[in-house]
């Protein structure tokens, strides 16, 4: 029983990482209907920016927020510069650009910061209070940060005019233009938000896996799996899916398949969900009259 509890808790902790990534995946997916394969690499790159700032002597929280702002602007710039011109191009062009971005971020990070692993600081205390051993302070911190981000996103989309406009622009661009919404900028904003969320995810993940250009490889797959499980249209679903993947991965690894097949496990989950419940756990099946 102890083992079960232990594995579930540590599954929740890794799940929080997946949830962060799943959240940024869903943000982009809602805006452009595509997976951004480069999402993980963008998050990694953001984490390197923070690391660099801290290395230059900046305070952690200063670096943290500067990184979020830089990532937000960077995400918008990528949309405006790279994706806006090919907006009407076929899906294959988009995929090629995603792969190119992946390579560019990976190689650039390797070129600037090299492929050796670096330690990345955690903003949370070393030890849990009350001598709790089941789960570390950083893990609890990640869960908290993920839930805070989820709440902020929810409030933003639910209660602000810009959030509403972003949803409208993604769902019905022509109608959105007819009420005066600049659809292009809404897309850019979506990219900016996704990049900012990804940056937070990167900074939360780096202390655990250590910072290096390939740190997101396995994690991105689980993040995708979390997003698919939760339903690609639902931020809440993405977070739940991320946690679920973390727990399932751990329990399956402990009791059933062993750690060698963990990555395969993520793929099996993705395929199973896509076959049996394509809209995911919380994804919205749009009720539409024709």
């Amino acid at each position, binding site marked *: 029983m102890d083992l079960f509890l232990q594995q579930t808790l540590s599954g929740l902790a890794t799940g929080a990482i997946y949830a962060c990534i799943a959240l940024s995946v869903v943000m982009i997916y809602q805006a452009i209907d595509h997976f951004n394969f480069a999402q993980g690499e963008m998050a990694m790159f953001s984490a390197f920016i923070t690391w660099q700032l801290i290395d230059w002597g900046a305070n952690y929280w200063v670096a943290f927020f500067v990184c979020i702002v830089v990532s937000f602007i960077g995400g918008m710039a990528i949309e405006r510069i790279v994706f806006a011109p090919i907006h009407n191009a076929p899906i294959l062009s988009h995929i090629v650009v995603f792969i190119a971005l992946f390579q560019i971020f990976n190689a650039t990070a390797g070129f600037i910061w090299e492929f050796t692993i670096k330690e990345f600081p955690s903003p949370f205390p070393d030890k849990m209070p009350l001598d709790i051993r089941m789960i570390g302070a950083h893990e609890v911190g990640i869960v908290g940060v993920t839930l805070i981000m989820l709440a902020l996103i929810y409030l933003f989309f639910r209660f602000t*005019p810009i959030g*509403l*406009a972003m*949803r*409208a622009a993604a*769902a*019905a661009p*022509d*109608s*959105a*233009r*007819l*009420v*005066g*919404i*600049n*659809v292009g900028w809404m897309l850019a904003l979506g990219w900016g938000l996704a990049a900012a969320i990804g940056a937070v995810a990167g900074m939360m993940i780096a202390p655990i896996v250590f910072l290096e250009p390939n740190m997101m490889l396995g994690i991105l797959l689980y993040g995708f799996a979390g997003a698919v499980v939760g339903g690609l249209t639902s931020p809440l679903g993405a977070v739940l899916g991320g946690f679920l993947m973390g727990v399932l991965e751990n329990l399956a690894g402990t009791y059933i398949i062993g750690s060698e097949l963990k990555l395969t496990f993520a793929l099996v989950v993705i395929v199973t969900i896509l076959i049996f419940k394509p809209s995911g756990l919380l994804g*919205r099946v*749009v*009720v*539409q*009259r024709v």
Partner: protein
Amino acid sequence: MAFLEVANLEAFYGPIQALHGISFSLEQGGITTILGANGAGKTTTLRSICGMVKTGGEISFDGESIAGKATEAIVRHGVAHVPEGRGTFVRVTTEENLKLGAFSRRDSKAVQQDMERVYGYFPRLKERRNQQAGTLSGGEQQMLAVGRALMLHPRLMLLDEPSFGLAPLIVQELFGILRTINKDEGVSMLLVEQNASLALELADHAYLLETGRVVMSGTADEISADESVRESYLGY
């Protein structure tokens, strides 16, 4: 210069030319209707005015050239379009649709009043304010499209078959509302309608389109009295 002045307007869908140099104008506070058979280019004309198709020629609104401008920029001049097919934001609620209609406005107090006014015109929408708009009936979505256009507090409304899918009684009511909006608030209207007699009743001027060309124009009374129009469009 007229409020809305369209000169030698051409429109293209890729290699297909849908409008072959049409010209017309609309006085401030006036209601002009565009009549024509299916495929004549009525929808294309409205879409051209708000920058949704590739055009040639000149379009000026309130003394300013709007040809070639982005749709959202034209809308912000006060041009509200009730599109063919209603253009509902299906995933959000009725009320959020109306809020979106006022997206470009900053006078939130007046927006709130306009919302109440729209609910006054269309009580059905008020009953269904929190319902996902995609689940509204066709007629309710048509009311929503008109309501959303009103939320812009427009100076010019482009109405593409506003009566589409509405029960006859509701159509009468809708046209009454349009007349009120025109009279009381001086909103100019460019109206495309299948129901020609209804349109000619409401409008003061009319243009007849045939395969992308204006073939007849005049006051609504003149057009109603024309023998060929009566035969082809009015059916008596």
